[in-house]
């Protein structure tokens, strides 16, 4: 009797699950900053460096977007790679996610925050002792290899450069194409086709700024990337996720001045969008990495719900009387 189409026919259960219960549970933890002072300082410096670099390349970008963006790839890859190596724990060296732990939307904001705070205070209190502290918090299954990389904060330099290189390769190959597609569906020009390489380069820049650190810290864990696709990572003190969100939102806003009829050279595709990406990225990083606001929170995409009962309250006026009567009798 139970054919697939008939499952649809079931009358809905009287009480539908609340919005939070309709959702999956995000499993990723906020990405910590490595507990060394260097990491903290360099993460500030990095934000500044990248913004200044783009600022000085602005005229070159306007003059010849394709060449400028292509040449910039080198510097941005290097800067982001160095940032990852210096400031972030590489994938596998930290507890990046709860292995199927029950963190739902409402409590999710709190639980990872605790883990994260523990790590952070540990880092502040006893510099090198942090790894042991983190070990305590982490479930044993997730710490594989963590104990061997004891000294420093993120393991040996060699152990950082190799993942940085790997994640660079992944960043340059995987995200640019989907990001290009997103740009195109949002209205990036298809004609003339000579602009398509520019769009691809723009997407590569977004990938380097927004996704390289995620590859570095989360590797290719499918549950982590499911969270990334659902924009469900928690904001973190290292400013990685805020940078990603900021870059995308900034690019979105950056498209705004293009339509104006000022006839300026810089209004051409994709200059303003790239600047929007960089500024949004920087703002996102400033808010979480420097000002430390909203850390541990996730983007909430659920619609607001009225309290049950709010819709049934009635007024004593007009045909409402009959309404309440019938309601009682029902």
């Amino acid at each position, binding site marked *: 009797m139970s054919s697939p189409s008939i499952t649809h026919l079931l009358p809905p259960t009287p009480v539908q699950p609340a919005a939070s219960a309709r959702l999956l549970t995000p499993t990723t933890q906020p990405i910590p900053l490595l507990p060394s002072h260097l990491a903290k300082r360099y993460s500030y410096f990095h934000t500044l460096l990248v913004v200044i670099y783009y600022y000085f390349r602005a005229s070159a970008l306007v003059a010849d977007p394709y060449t400028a963006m292509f040449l910039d790839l080198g510097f941005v890859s290097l800067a982001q790679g160095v940032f990852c190596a210096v400031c972030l724990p590489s994938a596998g060296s930290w507890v990046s996610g709860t292995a199927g732990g029950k963190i739902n939307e409402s409590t999710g904001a709190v639980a990872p925050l605790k883990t994260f705070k523990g790590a952070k205070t540990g880092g502040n209190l006893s510099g090198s002792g942090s790894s042991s502290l983190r070990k305590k918090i982490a479930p044993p299954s997730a710490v594989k290899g963590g104990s061997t990389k004891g000294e420093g904060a993120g393991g040996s330099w060699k152990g950082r450069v190799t993942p940085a290189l790997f994640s660079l390769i992944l960043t340059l190959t995987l995200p640019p194409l989907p990001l290009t597609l997103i740009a195109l569906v949002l209205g990036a020009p298809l004609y003339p086709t000579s602009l398509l390489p520019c769009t691809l380069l723009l997407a590569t820049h977004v990938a380097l700024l927004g996704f390289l650190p995620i590859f570095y810290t989360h590797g290719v864990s499918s549950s982590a990337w499911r969270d990334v696709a659902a924009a469900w990572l928690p904001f973190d003190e290292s400013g990685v996720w805020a940078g990603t969100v900021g870059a995308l939102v900034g690019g979105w806003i950056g498209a705004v001045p293009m339509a104006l009829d000022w006839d300026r050279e810089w209004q051409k595709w994709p200059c303003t969008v790239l600047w929007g990406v960089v500024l949004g990225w920087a703002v996102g990083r400033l808010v979480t990495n420097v000002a430390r606001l909203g850390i541990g929170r996730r983007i909430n995409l659920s619609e607001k719900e009225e309290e049950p009962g*709010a819709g049934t309250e009635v007024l004593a006026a007009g045909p409402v009387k009959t309404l309440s009567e019938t309601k009682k009798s029902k």
Partner: protein
Amino acid sequence: MVDRIGLSPEASRAEDGLGSLEKSAATTEEHQRQNIIRFKVTHVLLTVLLLWLTAVHVVGILFFAKGFLLTRLVLDNRSECGVLPDGQPSQISNGCWHPKTFDRAVILIIDALRYDFTIPSRRVFEQPPQKYYLDNLPLLHETAVSHPDHAILLPFIADPPTSTLQRLKGLTTGTLPTFIDIGSNFAGTAIEEDNIVSQLKNAGKTIVHLGDDTWHSLFPGYFDPNMTHSYDSFNVWDLHTVDNGVIEHIMPLLDQSPQQWDVIFGHFLGVDHAGHRFGPDHPAMAEKLRQMNDVLQEIMHKLDDDTLLVVMGDHGMDTKGDHGGESDEEVEAALWMYSKQPRFGKAETAVLLPPATAKERPVGQIDLVSTLSILLGLPIPFNNLGKPIAEAFTGPGSPDWKTLARVDRLAQSQIARYQEHYSRSRDLGLDDNAYRDQRTYLALSVESAADGRWEDAHHAYVNWHNEVISMYRRLWANFNVEDMICGITISGLALGFVFFFSRLSMGDKASAAPGLLRSAGLGTVVGAAIGSALGFLTPSSFSFLPGLVFGGTICGVIAATVWSFRHRLTTQSYLPSLWGWMALVFCLTQSAGFASNSYTIHEDTILLFFLTTFGILSLISSLRQASTADRVLGTYQSVLFILLTRLASFSRLCREEQMPGCRSTFYASSNSSTSAPWQLLIPYSVALLLPEIIKAFYQGTASYAGSAGFWIGFSFRIGLLLVAAYWTIDVADNGGWLMERLSPTTLKTINITLARSALAIAVPVGIGTFVWAKPCINISISEPRPAADNSGKPPRPQLTIYGYANVYGSRYLLMIPMLVLSVALLLPPVGQFSIAICTWQILCLLEILDTNGLTISSRGSSSVGPIILALLGSYHFFKTGHQATLASIQWNSAFVPLRTIQYPWSPLLVVLNTFGAQIICAAAVPLTVIWKRPTGKAGLRGLWNDVLNACLAHALYYATIQLATTMWAGHLRRHLMLYRVFMPRYLMACAVLLIVDMVLVVAALAGVRVVGLSVGEVFGY
């Protein structure tokens, strides 16, 4: 897995009306009856509520329009033959104010004769492009080059709006048009003020008119009834009837000897109609222009020595052949004057050839009246503001500056007299400085004339005239700011009320309707009393009627707001969710963007941007859903939604301001208004696929049952096939494929039959199906199974209801094909592509809303669905070949099922063509509530509340846009782009708001009532 519902016989039989009153003994039946009555009463109350809102919108729009749409005072004074404008008696015997040059005149208007049609392409282009509209009317230029003393060819600049009726007013009175008159193109009214036709009549001349019948509505009774022949002007499909009629009747008149006429006005429409129907770059245009060339040649030969021949365009046409706006191509017409005897000259001796482009040495269309009047020995009409065209008075050989200066002087004193009278009748509000330059030039002109320096006098006079004209242009942009502010206040308060009532107040709005309406009504009455009393007490600030209307509206809205504020305020957080923020940002940024001409021009791209953004967000949200079915379905539909949005963006019709960087794809080429043959694939694909797509959405919940199969799978498809056949024949007709086999009349008959059959399927069959259909469910009763638990109960038969999950939605969705079919019939093939995508996107949107918990229910009233529907409607407005310009109205659609203009059908068809996308989306608004709405014990309870929420949220978007565009148009009333960009957008926003209001009342609320009763009959109310 079977749903068991014991249907009692009582429950399945629902009867309303009084008949069941007595016999209803069972309490359930009594409740049913009460529920039905309550349901119907609420429907009526909500209808009244929305109608009241519509009325408030109308009043707001009217108030603003009253102050914003410009008016000019029409003076009734007339010039007299014997009295010079400065009051002296005229001493001239051979004419009125100046000796006449010609006895008779043949004045021919070739409608929409653009200047570049008459100029050899090699003069403009190094390598002339092969265009059908170029080089096919060489006569004018040839004669002007070979016989400069006999013929002059000049660019002839129209004052927008470039609609024929407005242009005829300007051409015969010499006045500047004001915007308010544009609406009268469909119903011309007689010209009351002084004009050249009435001056001719007063002088006892016999006037003959041939061609466009607009002249008769403007000048009733002026023309000689025996020789005059007029023809219907609005049948733009017909390229030849008017022209052939004019040619047929004009030749005998020219051959008469002695002539019984003095002036012939001939008005050819073929070129204009070819432009409207095919666009300028089409063989039909070439053929038409060559025909005109031959006709003019013949007329030229038949002319005698004392007859003046004038040929002119009343306006130009844009790249698609339409007109009405004020782009360069629309205002640049051509003027050609010819005389058998050498009588014309040059104003600039250095230049030998006629201007190569319309940018050089143009003359205004208002200049024609004074020129003709003096040439024919008539007084210049009183209200004229034009100056004589210099070339007509300088005479052959070396320029005769003296005559010219004298003629100038006459026109000057006439304009000065008009100025004096006008400022006496209406305070111009100008200080003395405004006249300073005028006085300087005038003094210079008088001084030069006194010294005999006639050429200097002429130039000083020209400068004076430029000053005057620019002053009047500014002056008649004289807005009534108080009225505009009143209008904005009303619209703003109405918007505030709707926003507060729909978004910020909780609780059951449907049951609140009576109280709300009562206080609104009370407020209206009190306000009307106060307003009219104020009108009596202080007549200076308020007159009676506006005071009454304004006071009533304002107080009604305020009372309603106060009432809802007092009764509905809850302490819940008002901060919206991310979705709410998104909707808010979309509305507000777009509203702010209308302050800039760029964002108004590129609105279609912005809407694409917003819609895709929504799609991406919904994609992200879908990926978070726990249920695999929701996740997969939501992701799939989101991706589809995004791709469809982008796909629709390939259908574009660029407005002039978007060039370059925009490629029109709506028609065969950017210079045409016909569809390319390959585009015929679209209607057939739509007929093939669209019913299948809709069917697939029904099958998702096994709802493809009941009337759905017959209506969607059969009737709708047949209708779409008829539409496809219609457009095939249309393209065949335009391309001349069937020329040998079938005459154009036969084709038109076939096409009208096809169109009417499609409409018959859409409207009578569609409405009938929608009203009388049963819910789209299938009920099967299976054999009783032996009870598994052996409890001793007798096994009961099991009832399986297919389509239960979406009873309301599938039933309501039956309405949409009806609208889609009607709109598709009126749209060219690419427009059908867009409207089909629009339909598909609506369905995607519904699934997205459902899978992401965004539908409007008792749990929450998300504004996303209705707002995205509004964006979708606005987006597809642009994708169906429209722009926020007057020229982009597809007037042709009025002739799809009709041969001639018929009221009220023709305007209705144009509205349906223009705003089809918004109408479909507005009708789909209740679907955001009832798509997959659970049916259960609750029955219809809360349905009206949710529907009202959805409707108000939808109207909120359009009302925001309307208020924003209105405010910006008012604020930027001195902006250079006002008439090109801001005013059309403002007019469009007002029209859309009212249309959407009406659709919500007529389609959405009524549809929900039908669906509610129909579903309630089966599942309980």
